[in-house]
């Protein structure tokens, strides 16, 4: 990893790490509260650890210039390992939380282990840790292959990957300590947000420069989606996190927004985080790995255009459907609902484009669990977007809102769509990046597929049942005009579904465990295949230009 960088780049890395260590030291020494000091110490420790890594390779010989004529896959390789690590962490914490909801005593009597602190560890772990690393790994791979050019930076891909994981680490380590700004999916405090800003802008510049250096006349659809993901997430992140810190050396900050404006900004962020982090980015993934694996052309280029612009334009308006029947003015709710309904068409356009691409390759779907992962992902994508538009209708929302139906909906998307497409992509990418013929064990991929599918179905069906029952119990009146159930009655009624949900989650986690083992064994396998001459390389030799 360090040996592939030039001496100058190594020295630059060392200077940056020195600055980072200094920053951590100042935070730790000058802190106004203990939590800020702890995070300063963590930053210092990470900087020192990485410095050792760089120093150990500082005097390695200069890398050969021919490397610039090859794709730059080392960052993707590390990102794959990190993806699987975060998947295991995030899913395990999620299943713990699920059991805790069924049996509230399954915790230790300490503030850090309370539900409110553990739950964001799960959401951040899976969305940003697992999902984010999968997106970085695949976006680096896809942009190079579809542009037939090497990444436009030698050091910046490492900065993006490791900087992003530092963000995840600071976020996840902050929650048990009680560091949060209490915005769902945007919990990290101001200094962590600032750091992500720097990392994300670097990501954007790296991506744009790579696209600018492409050796293809056209930009492939997958890159439209990855770029939309990077651009919009930057925008969402910056606006929703505008805040005034209590002091430069204090972990707390106060949001620039208050009241209903705060709620609207938060859900404009929250819904578009789903749209551009969990949808656009993963559609980019699907648009590359699914046709490659199926060995079929994309069904319709024209439909890709309609879907892409439909999704990017319409999602921006839909966030207010999270705030139906609240203090938010009625007209904003109307806009949120109507745009959510129109949004269904481009969403189904994308799902249909994926499934119709499989025409002529259904025998591969049958035989190849990796492709089947991606096929199921497209189905769940269609299912979830239909459900989302349906739940955005005010009258439906009056039943579904605040119930477990929402949890079921989110997990149909997060497990069935995001995780399935990610695992499909990883099972295609891992052997390719390590030069292996195939995954270590085809049987393990098959087992992972069925565990994941069973887990997802159990999870989603139990939450659908639970949510609808809960919603109906809340609004049931008897003939005397009296509410028929107290809140605790509904909690008692949820109990069996909570157990089922936790079992489903455990199956999904077991599948991911098998997947992590399989990825690890593939990496360690000695069975390398020699690349065909002139095969997987950038189109034009850049060195010497």
């Amino acid at each position, binding site marked *: 990893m360090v040996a592939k960088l030039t001496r100058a780049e190594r020295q630059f890395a060392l200077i940056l790490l020195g600055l980072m260590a200094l920053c951590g030291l100042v935070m730790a020494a000058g802190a106004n509260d203990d939590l800020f000091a702890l995070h300063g110490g963590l930053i210092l420790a990470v900087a020192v650890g990485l410095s050792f890594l760089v120093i150990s390779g500082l005097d390695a010989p200069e890398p050969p210039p021919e490397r610039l004529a090859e794709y730059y896959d080392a960052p993707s390789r590390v990102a794959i390992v990190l993806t699987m690590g975060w998947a295991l962490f995030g899913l395990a914490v999620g299943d713990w939380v699920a059991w805790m909801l069924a049996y509230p005593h399954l915790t230790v009597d300490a503030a850090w282990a309370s539900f409110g602190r553990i739950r964001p560890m799960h959401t951040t772990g899976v969305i940003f840790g697992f999902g984010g690393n999968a997106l970085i790994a695949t976006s680096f791979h896809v942009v190079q*292959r*579809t542009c*037939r050019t090497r990444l436009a930076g030698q050091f910046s891909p490492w900065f993006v990957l490791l900087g992003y994981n530092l963000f995840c680490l600071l976020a996840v380590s902050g929650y048990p300590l009680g560091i949060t700004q209490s915005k769902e999916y945007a919990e990290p405090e101001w200094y962590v947000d600032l750091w992500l800003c720097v990392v994300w802008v670097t990501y954007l510049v790296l991506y744009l420069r790579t696209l600018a250096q492409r050796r*293809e*006349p*056209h930009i*492939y*659809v997958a890159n439209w989606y990855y770029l939309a993901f990077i651009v919009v997430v930057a925008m969402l992140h910056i606006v929703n996190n505008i805040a005034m810190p209590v002091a430069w050396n204090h972990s707390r900050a106060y949001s620039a927004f208050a009241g209903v404006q705060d709620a609207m900004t938060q859900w404009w962020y929250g819904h578009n985080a789903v749209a551009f982090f969990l949808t656009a980015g993963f559609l980019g993934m699907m648009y*590359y790995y699914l*046709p*490659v694996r199926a060995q*079929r*052309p*994309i*069904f*319709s*280029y*024209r*439909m*890709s255009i*309609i879907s892409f612009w*439909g999704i990017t334009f319409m999602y921006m308006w839909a966030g207010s459907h999270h705030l139906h*029947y609240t203090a938010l*003015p*009625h*007209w904003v*709710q*109307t*806009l949120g*609902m*109507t*745009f959510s*309904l*129109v949004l*269904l*068409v*481009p969403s*189904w*356009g994308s799902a*249909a484009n994926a499934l119709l691409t499989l*025409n*002529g390759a259904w025998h591969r779907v049958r035989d190849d669990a990796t492709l089947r992962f991606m096929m199921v992902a497209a189905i769940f994508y269609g299912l979830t977007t239909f459900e989302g538009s349906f739940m955005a209708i005010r009258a439906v929302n009056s039943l579904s809102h605040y119930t477990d139906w929402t949890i079921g909906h989110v997990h149909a998307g997060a497990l069935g769509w995001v995780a399935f497409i990610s695992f499909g992509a990883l099972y295609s990418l891992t052997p390719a990046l390590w030069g292996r013929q195939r995954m270590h064990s085809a049987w393990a991929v098959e087992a992972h597929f069925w565990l994941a599918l069973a887990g997802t179905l159990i999870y989603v069906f139990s939450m659908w049942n639970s949510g609808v029952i809960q919603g109906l119990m809340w609004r049931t009146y*008897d*003939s*005397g*005009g*009296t*509410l*028929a*159930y*107290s*809140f*605790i*009655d509904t909690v008692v009624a949820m109990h069996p579904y909570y157990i089922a949900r936790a079992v489903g989650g455990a199956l999904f986690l077991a599948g991911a465990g098998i997947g992590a083992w399989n990825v690890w064994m593939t990496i360690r396998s000695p069975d390398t295949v020699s690349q065909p001459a002139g095969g997987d390389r950038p*189109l034009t030799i850049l060195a010497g230009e």
Partner: protein
Amino acid sequence: MSGGAERDPISGYMTTGHEWNGIKELNTPVPRAVWFFLITTVLFAVVWWVLMPAWPLGNTYTKGLLGIDQRQVVQHDLRRAAERMPPWRGAVLRLDYASIQADPALMGQVRRHGAVLFGDNCAACHGLGGRGGPGFPALASGSWLWGGAPEVLAETIRVGINSDHPETRVSQMPAFGRDQMLSRPEILAVLGHVRSLSGGNPGSELGRDLFAANCAACHGEDAHGAVELGAPNLTDPTWIYGGDEETIFKTIFFGRQGHMPRWDQRLSELDRKVLALYVADLAAGGTDGTH
């Protein structure tokens, strides 16, 4: 690497002629269904915008032809609910407690409505079915601090105990140990006597004397408590904080001052009346707190 467009043998459509690392795209026209649904949903959206409040216009917004707004809808629903109030509610408000208790049909409504009200407002402290818990009186036990008649219960619910209501019920047990009114051996002697009152081993002479001098003023000579002071009966087997030696010692040493919120700002008069009847009924065994 762009080559010429070619025909895909399986679908029969032409490709676009571009290729990215082996990926090609078909130039399939957008299916009619996509256009149909796109146009339909957009038309629906436009119609909905015309009918409902929809687009901002500077300081105001388009109100919509139907003139609907969620605030008016809620007010309308509340008004209609008030107009259509079921007759039993009026009867509960109008009649006195004894007449309601004598009417089985009304009490059936009280039990149904009361169970929900109790579950949502009282059970968090007093437990499901009023079984109580450490620090929170067991309402189903029939052992009352302030009295168990429904009128009295209604008043307790209205003003609370040691709450910020100006007419709140006030009660405090002094901290005999911490405030040095009794020494440690004296507390142990009183403790022995108190435990003997509800059937424990007989206490000492000293304990009995100390009780008469320090405790009887509130708890009574016979230790049966005093509902006008909120002093508990010490002779029954029901304990609020616990009847073991350690807990009683703590109670005498540090004193107690329980708190119950006032409900006059949270619950309507009707709901409070239903709850008072429901709690009285719980203690009388008329309901066990389940459906």
